[in-house]
């Protein structure tokens, strides 16, 4: 199968990790996968192509309107790839009526001018099939396709047993890593959850270790957000200082697994909207590749249905500090959950599996 992915590829945001994996693993599986566009020096290993007619399908991976190519390239795509061979993967649930959760929303009209009807009619014009990375799409005309996946070949340390993992994790003096907690992700509709998380860590902070927050706009609130009263990029620098959280700018997608491995714990958060819609992201899976104990700050139904039953141990529950203290006391118990979850993800959510699912959808 020859797949032409259409999206905006940047090194630190959106689906870049997944798209690069699709390109590499697709080739291994005998498919031809490329990104639509001219070759990019910053993505030397990712094939790019403008030869639309050489591909069987165009797969639009869409987070926001800018993920569609600009004119005239959009026109070329629509002219040269028939609609029945164009599909959209709607990563943020925009192909729904407007849904607001707290101040998160699937249509930020004040930012992009597009109301729900325009998203819906736009997607319907572009594609014959619309997929969403959730097990529970709301609309009948949407098919579930998780898109993001787990790649065991990128596990930083593929331990053979919980004992081995726990020993490495604890280190000779019980402090093998420079950080207690690292969260890598951008400041976009996550602040409220992070603030609650940091507050909850407070009783055990001295024993957990340094806390590092890495991504866009954790060190300032952008002017445009202030101007528009946009709460999705809220941050409280005084609070972060009081909580002992050091911040850093965004990192490239291929540095995330290693950086997360510098911490004993890495929380996984989804935006409130994503929690409500059951949408998964790259980080839903990728954090399990890092040499760290993932903390699944996700709804129980999402964890159980995606990560498997054993992963429930990695949900800290209401008393986060107490759970982390317990993890430090008996790391083997929790590393057993991590290794079982890794195995579950490898069996059920590998990129190979995703290719099979995608082929079924495309050929149906």
């Amino acid at each position, binding site marked *: 199968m020859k797949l032409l992915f259409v999206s905006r590829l940047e090194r630190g945001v959106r689906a870049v990790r997944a798209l690069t994996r699709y390109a590499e693993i697709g080739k291994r599986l005998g498919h031809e996968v490329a990104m639509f566009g001219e070759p990019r020096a910053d993505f030397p290993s990712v094939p790019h192509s403008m030869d639309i007619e050489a591909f069987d399908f165009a797969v639009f991976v869409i987070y926001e*309107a*800018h993920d*569609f*190519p*600009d*004119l*005239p390239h*959009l*026109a070329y795509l*629509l002219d040269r790839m028939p*609609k029945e061979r164009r599909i959209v993967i709607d990563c943020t649930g925009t192909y729904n009526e407007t849904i607001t959760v707290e101040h998160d929303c699937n249509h930020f009209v004040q930012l*992009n*001018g*597009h*109301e729900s*009807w*325009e*998203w819906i*009619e*736009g997607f319907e*014009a*572009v594609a014959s099939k619309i997929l969403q990375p959730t097990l529970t799409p709301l609309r009948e005309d949407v098919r579930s396709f998780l898109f993001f996946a787990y790649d065991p070949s990128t596990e930083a340390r593929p331990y053979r047993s919980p004992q081995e993992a726990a020993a490495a994790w604890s280190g000779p003096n019980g402090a093998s890593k420079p950080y207690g907690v690292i969260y890598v992700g951008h400041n976009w509709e996550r602040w409220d959850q992070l603030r609650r998380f940091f507050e909850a860590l407070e009783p055990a902070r001295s024993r957990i270790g340094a806390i590092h927050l890495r991504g866009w706009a954790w060190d300032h609130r952008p*002017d*445009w957000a202030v*101007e528009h009263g946009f709460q999705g990029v809220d941050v409280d620098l005084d609070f972060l200082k009081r909580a002992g959280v050091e911040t850093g700018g965004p990192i490239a997608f291929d540095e995330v697994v290693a950086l997360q491995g510098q911490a004993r714990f890495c929380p996984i958060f989804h935006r409130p909207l994503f929690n409500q819609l059951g949408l998964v992201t790259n980080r839903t899976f990728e954090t399990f590749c890092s040499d760290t104990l993932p903390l699944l700050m996700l709804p129980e139904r999402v964890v159980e249905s995606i990560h498997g039953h054993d992963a429930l141990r990695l949900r800290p529950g209401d008393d986060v500090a107490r759970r982390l203290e317990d993890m430090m006391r008996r790391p083997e118990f929790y590393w057993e959950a991590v290794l079982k979850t890794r195995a579950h993800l490898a069996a059920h959510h590998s990129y190979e599996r995703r290719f099979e699912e995608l082929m079924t959808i495309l050929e149906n």
Partner: protein
Amino acid sequence: MNILFMMDRRANAGSIQAVASYVRAGDELGHTIAVYGQPDPKYLGIRWSTEFDSFDHVVFVCEFGIGWMSALRMSRILTQVPRKKRAVLDADGMYNPVVCVDMYDRNHADEHNRARWVAHCDAVADKIFQPTLEPLNAAVLPLPFYGYDPTLRLELGARPKSFDIVHLGHNWWRWREVSSRVLPAIERIRPKLDGVCFVGLWWDMVPAGAREQNLEMAFEFDMDRFRRLGIDVKPAVPFTEVVSAMSEGRVNIMTQRPLFRRLKLLTAKYFEIFCADTIPLVMLEPAHAESIYGPAGRELALHGNISDKLLDVIQNPLRYRQIVEAVRIHLVDCHSYHRRLQQLVDALRS
């Protein structure tokens, strides 16, 4: 003919007043004119539609920015409206070579930007119109587009006069002319004038993002100078209140950005100002003013000694009202929206 306009939705800028007049003229002449989108109470008099099937042609009204022509929006049009039914009105003269006037106003920052803009329009349509009678680019079709709508006219005495002079328009590449010609003229006669008011955006602030786009020069202003001259600044008004706001001034000055003057681009303001209960003075070359407004228009061209002209108008309103009336008669004859709509229909059919 049924015509759907697509445009950046802005109630206080651009071509929205003109489009409202097209809707009215269409209703009177048996054409259906609408704007793409869903109904919005802020836009009185506008008909909205998202049903491409109901229209014979789609006309994109493009100004400086084309961000509103997002791919999401365009994908639907590109797949549902055949190319031969689409046309672009290039209101700001962007579909041209890079034109820079006096190292100041320009249509594009550079060749890359120009190529991107032109490629965008070429992808949309074959027909590119510009509101000028003398396009630079042979591929562009001249179409005056903007016209005079007497239904907007405010009669004499309809509004009390709060100012001797009003300037209504946004501070977008206007500062050089305003600071070098208009303000010195006002300064010379300021003691003889009652209030002076500038209405519009960016006379007292630079918008967010101007620096990042290297557009700070387009928004230059000097509030201290305005204060010293006793000039009031009022915020922009929606298109439905433009004529009323102009009518607060005994005299209205129309300036035009240098690029538009160089390209001889018409704007809605050329005609809107004659709907107001005021005496319009237009900063145009007399010959150009005459070509639009008829022979009487020469008298309203503001050039040469601006101070003396302003005083003359304020001291002799009766004489100038007669001149303005003569221009209005010419505008009804030559530049009505009935005529404009017929020109648009013909251009789309051709």
